[in-house]
Structure formats: C-alpha cells, structure tokens
C-alpha cells in the first residue's frame, strides 16, 4: 500500500515537473518571438526630428535654425523632444482657454456695440474697453497657437479639421485687423460704422467656426 502511494506521488510530481517545463518552454519561445520583433524596433527615431512641414512662425522659433535652436544644453534628444511636446500641450491648452474667453468677449462686445450703433453713447467707453480686452485675449490666443512647438508629425494630405481651423484663422485675423482699423476711422467718418460692424461679425463668425471645427 505504501509503495503504491509512493509510486503515485512520484508519478504526480514527475507530471507536474513536466507540465512546468512545457509551460516554461512555451513562454520562453513566446518571449523569444517577441524579442525578435523588439530588437528591431527599440527606438523610434522618426519622432525625434522636427517635422518637415511647420508654420513659418513655428520654424522661426523651433526650427533647426530657429531662434530657440540652442534651448537645451543636454544632448538627450528624447528628453528634449518630450520637453518640446510638453510646452506644446501647455500652449495649446492656453490657446483653447484664450479662444473661449475671446468668443465670450466678442459676444459681449456685439451686444454693447449694437447699443452704441442705436445711439446709446453712454456705452462708448465700455465698448472701447471691451474692445481692448478682446484684442488682448485674441492676441494671447493667437500667439499661443502660432508659436507653439510643432506637432510630432506633418503627414496630413487631405483637408482636415486643423487645416480648416488654420484657414479660418486667416479670415478672423484679417477681420480683427479690419475691425480695429475701421474703429480708429469712425470718429472722422461715421459712414464706416456698417463696415466696422460687418468686419466684427465676420471675425466673430469665423472664430466661432474655427472653434467648432477643431478636433484634438
């Protein structure tokens, strides 16, 4: 009886060892397959270099010959790129906040401006002050968008939401410049008021559309 129990114990132990050996062998083979792949793909050098295409404003700062070309003393290219991407994220978040604040300011300015247009001159100073604030937030937003470090890629070939966002930026920037120039001329030439208002509406509409089309 004792001998039979001992035989079964030995048999069971042998079976377990065999199972463990097989499992380890399968795992080792699986790991070795993966290692074949990893050894050939360990570094993604395509991400380290700046993209071939970027806005001229970005190139002026972050390009290989840009003003900030010597911004990092260390030679760790990966760490440097990570810092750039972190700055980019912060600037784009500020760009989003600035965009919302500017839209809010423009809405308020639209209401105040229409009162002024109807002849309520008590709000003239308020209109000018809000106009200044909108210019400041707009400028802040534009700077954070135009001068953010470039994205890791520039491979879009089709019309994308970002491309539409940039085209609309040309429109609202032109509208903002026109609105401001016309504002300085109205005191001497009141007939320019409708044009000033139209330019402001174009700026608002194109900025609002630019905000809607954007996707992260």
């Amino acid at each position, binding site marked *: 009886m004792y001998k039979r129990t001992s035989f079964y114990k030995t048999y069971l132990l042998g079976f377990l060892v065999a199972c463990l050996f097989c499992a380890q062998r*399968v*795992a080792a*083979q*699986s*790991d070795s*397959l*993966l290692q*074949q*792949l*990893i050894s*050939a*793909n*360990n*570094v*993604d050098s*395509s*991400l*380290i270099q700046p*993209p071939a295409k970027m806005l001229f404003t970005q190139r002026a700062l972050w390009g290989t010959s840009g003003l900030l070309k010597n911004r990092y003393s260390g030679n760790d290219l*990966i760490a440097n*790129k*990570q810092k750039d*991407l*972190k700055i*980019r*994220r912060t600037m784009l978040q500020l760009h*989003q906040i600035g965009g919302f604040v500017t839209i809010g300011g423009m809405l308020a300015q639209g209401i105040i401006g229409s009162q002024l247009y109807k002849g309520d001159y008590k709000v003239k100073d308020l209109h000018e002050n809000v106009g200044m604030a909108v210019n400041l937030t707009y400028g802040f937003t534009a700077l954070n968008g135009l001068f953010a470090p470039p*994205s*890791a*890629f*520039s*491979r*879009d070939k*089709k019309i*994308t*939401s*970002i491309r539409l966002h940039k085209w609309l930026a040309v429109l609202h920037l032109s509208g903002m410049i026109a609105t401001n120039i016309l504002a300085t001329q109205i005191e001497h030439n009141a007939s320019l008021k409708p044009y000033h208002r139209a330019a402001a509406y174009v700026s608002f509409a194109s900025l609002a559309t630019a905000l809607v089309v*954007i*996707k*992260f």
Partner: protein
Amino acid sequence: MSVFFQAPTYDVTSSSITYTMKHKLHAWDGTSKQVNVASKWNGDKLEQISVLAKVSSFNSGLSSRDSHMIEVLDALTLPNITFSSTSIKYSGADILTTGKLQFHGVTKEIQFVAKAKKENNQWLYEGEFPVLLESYNVKRPSLLFVKADDLIKIKFVLVFKDK
C-alpha cells in the same frame, strides 16, 4: 522541435491594427499598417504569435491628434505596443487566444476570440478586444477640457500570405 514549429514563411505586410476611441463630441479610428508579426505554426494552425506595432505608426488622419497620442502614450520612451500569446486554442473557426499585452509600459494578460479563415492562399486572423486606458496608466487625452472615453476598442486583421 524544429519540425513541429515550422519557421514562418508568410508575408504579413497587409496586416493592420485599428483603435477606435470616443469623445463626447466625436469618435475616430487610428490605423497602423506597419504591423510586425512573428509566428510559429503547426501545419495550418497557429501555435504562437507575437505582434508589435509602433505607437507612431497609427494614423487617424489628423497629425495633431496623432501627436497628442504620442504625448499621452509617452511614445518617445515607450515606442511599442506588443502582444505575445501564451495560449492558442482552436475551436472550429474560433481561436481562443490568451497572451500578454504590453501597452504604455504596463503588461497585462488579456484573452479574446479571433476568427481564422483561408482566402486565396492567405490566412486571415481577425478579432477585437477592449482596452481601458487608465488600467495601463494612460492619462486620457482631452478636447476642450473634456476627456476621451476610457474604453478603446482594438481591432486587428492579420494577413498571412503564402510567399
């Protein structure tokens, strides 16, 4: 053993992996067509498989979004997403696959059912499985200060063409 595990003689360059991600405002897909595959076969049956795709190879059609993914997935230091099977069990056309998914530097065991079919001298292995971003320590990307959904769907089509 070398007879049992034949060296792979397949062209896998038509394979692809696609993720689907959702946000309150929209949903989008990103596809990688640069899928690296190493496999071991027992006749017509897959015995083991390892798959590697670079984070940077996923293209969602929007560079800035893909760049954002590079940031949240820390792809500069963790460039690869890998899967390595530990068990493959056939049940008709269904293949119950268990293995280790390494994503954002975190390795977890996952299990999914893949389908296999042979078409024009090529084997197609298709399947999908869910991934919870936060369970892999991924900080979810956000748009207009609203975070994308935690759950993403990974769909794969592995094509093994006779060389």
